[in-house]
């Protein structure tokens, strides 16, 4: 049933990682993604792996759950591996079949590229596992605010996300009810040609759209009645404040980048 879907993948907890400021976490995630591209040797990939493992442990999330977040993109990861392995330049041929040539260099490159993807997925899912969507929205708004002068609508984007988070469960429930109501009138959603099936969806989609518009209209009036007039002059109940821990976390990431840079260019490892 539709209503069985649980929204978002926030996993409440009280770990060090959960407690970090959302802005610090978003910045740290971005910096980590940069760090990934500093890694060159297998040894530096080892350092990255250790770091990711440490973050998972610190977050006290179920390890399997975090690892499972790689699942949705496993095809792309495998594809990355194969494309690099079979098309990479290199002289050390391990296997050849007609046009396809598997080289040692290509294989290593493929593994590295896939690892980059895996690290990226793991670290960004740790961000969403440890940060509630609402706090994440606050963080994004706060980080985007300086870019308002170049036309980034930070407040509006955040308000849209907030309202979406609030109404997605309501609209899922509503969809469920409309499907049932039309089913009770003998509607059939599972048979016929593709075009026919698309047409069969109209008795669901039209009421759903009408309802969404009505809700939007009523919500707009209710917001106006509560003195909403855009982001200008607005305050927040929860103001984001950087704490020592946030600076330490960012410092650690910068250190990680430094270590990787030194390994690559200083020591040639």
């Amino acid at each position, binding site marked *: *049933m539709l209503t069985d879907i649980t929204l978002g993948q926030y996993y409440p907890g009280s770990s060090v990682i959960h407690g970090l400021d959302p802005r610090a976490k978003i910045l740290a995630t971005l910096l980590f993604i940069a760090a990934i591209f500093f890694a060159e040797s297998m040894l530096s990939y080892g350092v990255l792996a250790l770091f990711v493992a440490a973050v998972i442990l610190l977050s006290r999330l179920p390890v399997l759950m975090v690892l499972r977040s790689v699942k949705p993109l496993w095809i792309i990861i495998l594809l990355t591996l194969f494309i690099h392995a079979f098309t990479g330049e290199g002289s050390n041929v391990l296997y050849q079949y007609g046009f396809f040539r598997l080289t040692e260099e290509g294989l290593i490159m493929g593994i590295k590229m896939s690892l980059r993807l895996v690290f990226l997925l793991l670290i960004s899912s740790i961000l969403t596992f440890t940060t509630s969507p609402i706090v994440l929205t606050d963080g994004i708004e706060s980080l985007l605010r300086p870019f308002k002068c170049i036309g980034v609508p930070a407040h509006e984007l955040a308000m849209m996300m907030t309202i979406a988070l609030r109404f997605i469960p309501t609209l899922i429930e509503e969809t469920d*009810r*409309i499907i*049932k109501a*039309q089913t*009770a*009138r*003998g*509607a059939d959603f599972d048979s016929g040609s593709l075009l026919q099936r698309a047409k069969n969806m109209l008795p669901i989609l039209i*009421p759903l759209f009408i309802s969404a518009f009505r809700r939007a209209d009523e919500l707009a009036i209710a917001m106006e009645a509560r003195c909403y007039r855009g982001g200008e002059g607005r305050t927040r109940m929860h103001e984001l404040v950087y704490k020592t821990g946030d600076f330490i976390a960012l410092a650690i990431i910068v250190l990680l980048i430094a270590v990787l840079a030194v390994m690559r260019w200083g020591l040639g490892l």
Partner: protein
Amino acid sequence: MPISLEHVSFTYMKGTPFEKTALHDVNLQIEKGEFVAVIGHTGSGKSTLVQHLSGLLHPQKGSVCVDGVNLNAKNAAAKKARNSVGMVFQYPEHQIFAETVYEDIAFGPRNKGLTPEGTDRAVKDAMAFAGLDFETFAQRSPFRLSGGQMRRVAIAGVVAMEPDYLILDEPSAGLDPRARDEIFKEIMALYRKRGIAVILVTHNMEEAARYATRLLVVSDGRIILDGVPHEIFTNHKEELLKVSMDVPPVYKLAECLQEHGLNVKSTPELADLERQILKVRRSRHAD
């Protein structure tokens, strides 16, 4: 032949921390010609119950049969059986989708496989039932009608399926008293004319007392009381209060009078209570 539920159990979000059992081993039979009111507070399981009656939810345990046909089988007989149970959801006007009143009401009959002539007749009958003049309304956009009229179009859309069992989930919700009375007048006319079974889910005790021949009280996924409304409202007030239900106002008035020593019997009809009061007063004056 009846709708029958045998040992039906149902749990929402089974196997998750949000697991909630909505029905516990429910047994129930509803015959054609009955007018059954189902009461129970929000979350009691009454919505889950009526969705089983119409085959919209499949029992996790037990079975639901209409006229001996299991509703959850995947064959033509089961589909026909499901079509014999009409379901009007709460705020049914929110499910209207077609460009004209005619097209929206014709949706059900067409899905049932009626011929164009058959559909036409079913739509005309349903509109007549709902008090919607064919000439005036058939080609109008349902979205431009008033709230009360949209409600009638939506109910007509289910009635046009010509169900033997008609389930109505709070058909009068959000309407003013006049519109409420009209909707019920039409439902009663249909009930009497076609001899169908009506299953009315309601929060309004007065509606239950006035229209139903049978009352089901649902609490915590079980049918805790099943009987004639008058009998339940007279003799089971304590049980009703315990599950946050109440008796209709006219029973409360009778009870208040009885407590003060006036010799009147509780009754679902105000007129009847007034006759009793007059009799008591006369006999008192005669003394």
